[in-house]
């Protein structure tokens, strides 16, 4: 602790910084050598491959890899193959920005798919904007995300569409609910979704008798359920992830409480059936896309393929990641002169894209208005209850 150590300290720091620079710089130069016409096109993928959200990040990794392989097997993009550069953001916004800088610095990278959480996407957004690089997030659902700048796209679907759909058609028309209790996940997506849902529900005369939130990772809902039971709802609407839906269904069953369970958001996830068993019979949810393993539709083939590769069941997030990458590829195919800017323009102007999660067309802000299905669980299987035209 004497003055002697101060210069030593500064020395060490600067040495390390400089050596890191040289190391990183050397790496980049090596990369830069092969930017000719036949070289692969690079697309960045940022996802939480480690850490608490690894469940979703790993799904991204598998889905985007599948999409890239299929593109390459079909001859690539105008003769050039696609190469993914996958980076782990750990769900940490600081890492996400570092990745954003790395992608921005690498001139070969023409678009980025990711990240999982809105926080990561939004922290990285200004960097991508500066670099003129598209970030197309399969999942970011903060209502402010896509509008941040013109390079941000989201394929999750805006909550101003799904919330009202669930409120009017699932709860109102389909279930005929009169007294609804809403349980929502306290994050950006959950709050936005439940706000729209409740607004619509009230408009069409449904009585929203209780409103409770929970934090991410919550496991014990008994207190919350006991509380909303007091207001005697006939239907509970869950605005949360599939794991939580199953746990809530189990706890409702344990309470011997006979109440209709509906949900917004979890999608037709097999996880719900796996975790909930008999307790989720009659469970209803909205979903932008529905696939079974019958192999008939494209979505279904994708689902089977995904599950055999990933070793876990498909969720809507991974399906969106698959579509996101395919959209980027489509935009690249459509470009006359391929550049970061052309990818953005083509994405923004893309018409009639059919993904496994349904038709996707961006609004001016860069997000999409999806159409939804109602699906439910019957005899331990997901069954489609309505088709896309139900809401028309």
């Amino acid at each position, binding site marked *: 602790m004497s003055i002697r150590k101060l210069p030593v300290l500064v020395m060490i720091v600067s040495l390390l910084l400089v050596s890191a620079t040289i190391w990183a710089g050397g790496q980049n130069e090596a990369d830069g050598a092969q930017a000719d016409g036949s070289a692969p096109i690079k697309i960045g993928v940022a996802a939480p491959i480690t850490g608490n959200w690894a*469940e979703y990040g790993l799904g991204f990794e598998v889905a985007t890899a599948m999409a890239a392989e299929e593109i390459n097997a079909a001859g690539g993009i105008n003769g050039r193959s696609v190469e993914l550069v996958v980076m782990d953001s750990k769900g940490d916004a600081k890492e996400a920005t570092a990745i954003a800088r790395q992608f921005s610095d690498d001139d070969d990278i023409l678009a980025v798919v990711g990240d999982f959480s809105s926080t990561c996407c939004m922290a990285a957004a200004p960097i991508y904007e500066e670099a003129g690089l598209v970030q197309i997030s399969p999942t970011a659902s903060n209502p402010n995300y896509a509008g941040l700048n013109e390079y941000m796209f989201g394929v999750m679907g805006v909550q101003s569409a799904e919330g009202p759909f669930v409120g009017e058609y699932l709860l109102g028309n389909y279930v005929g609910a009169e007294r609804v209790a809403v349980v929502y996940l306290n994050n950006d997506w959950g709050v936005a979704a439940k706000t729209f849902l409740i607004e619509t529900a009230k408009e069409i005369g449904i009585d929203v008798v209780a409103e409770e939130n929970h934090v991410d990772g919550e496991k014990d809902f008994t207190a919350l359920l006991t509380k909303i039971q007091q207001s005697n709802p006939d239907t509970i609407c869950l605005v949360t992830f599939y794991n939580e839906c199953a746990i809530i269904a189990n706890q409702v069953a344990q309470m011997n409480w006979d109440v209709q369970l509906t949900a917004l958001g979890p999608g037709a996830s097999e996880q719900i059936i796996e975790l909930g068993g008999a307790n989720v019979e009659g469970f209803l949810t909205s979903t932008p896309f529905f696939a079974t393993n019958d192999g008939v539709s494209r979505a279904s083939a994708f689902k089977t393929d995904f599950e055999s590769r990933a070793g876990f069941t498909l969720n809507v997030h991974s399906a969106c990641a698959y579509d996101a990458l395919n959209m980027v590829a489509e935009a690249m195919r459509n470009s006359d002169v391929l550049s970061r800017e052309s990818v953005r323009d083509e994405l923004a102007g893309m018409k009639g894209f059919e993904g496994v999660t349904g038709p996707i067309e961006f609004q001016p802000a860069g997000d999409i208005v999806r159409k939804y299905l109602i699906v439910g669980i019957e005899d331990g299987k997901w069954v489609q209850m309505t088709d896309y035209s139900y809401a028309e």
Partner: protein
Amino acid sequence: MYVLQQLVNGICQGSIYALMAIGYALIFGVVGLVTFTYGEIIMLGAFSAFYYFIVFGDNLILSLLCGFVVAGLVGIVVHKVCYQRFLDAPRYISLIATIGMSMFIKNLAIIVFGSTMKGLPLFFEGQNLVIAERTIDGVRQQLSLTYLQVVVIVTVVVLSIALTLFLNKTRIGMRLRAVSQDRKAAALVGVNVKNTTLLGNCIGCGFGGIAGILLGLYYNSIIPTMGGVAGLKAFSAVVIGGLSNIAGAAIGGISIGIVENLGIAFIPNGSGYRDVYAFLFLIIALVIKPEGLFSRRTGTV
């Protein structure tokens, strides 16, 4: 009735915390070090049962035994890696080592077990112990317990009593207590401190494993990242209970459960603040009794 039911909910959830806290208290008492690996031990216990059910079929008692053994064995590794060298060193060293260990186990588990949430078989499904029931204005109110909740509460009580008896009546237990109270004095009277510490940690981790299985069964879900919250709650319960006091830890756990559930019950849209209630309770408890609510001896730093 509503208050009573929420109280029952609190006790049930608290008994899960208590179950986790018992093992932690034992580890803390014997090793004398804070650990952040305990949550991961709980997780490993739960996953060992998951694979046990797949391989050997649904036998609850045997799976608990399996969880105990697996967690205990991991406890030995944790002990060798994180504690043994650092027993006499400042505490933060082993604390950081356990943080590293926790990171290591958790992320390895994500790779090995897969990152998705898994279910355990449902035991005692749909069977309720309805204590009272009434209907007011069409609202059904009931006071009920599920059998699983009963199992958990009974396990907590049995384990606390068994462990207390074990510590007070058996030779090994006496040695554990001696080491827990004064390592050097214990060495002077001929206790093999090294092995006893290892054994204590091993048993403590074993209890963590059992807690993990019951936790998994109770919520019917296990996931490699489940350890973080679990470990934190166990730690809080142990601190409230006076660190190395087994019964205190159990009561600490239950009281945290009650406080959380009553908080949710009475604060509008207050479920998101669950941990706030728990930690405020903890802080207030510590301000009133700086050594924990049930501590008998003065804590060491």
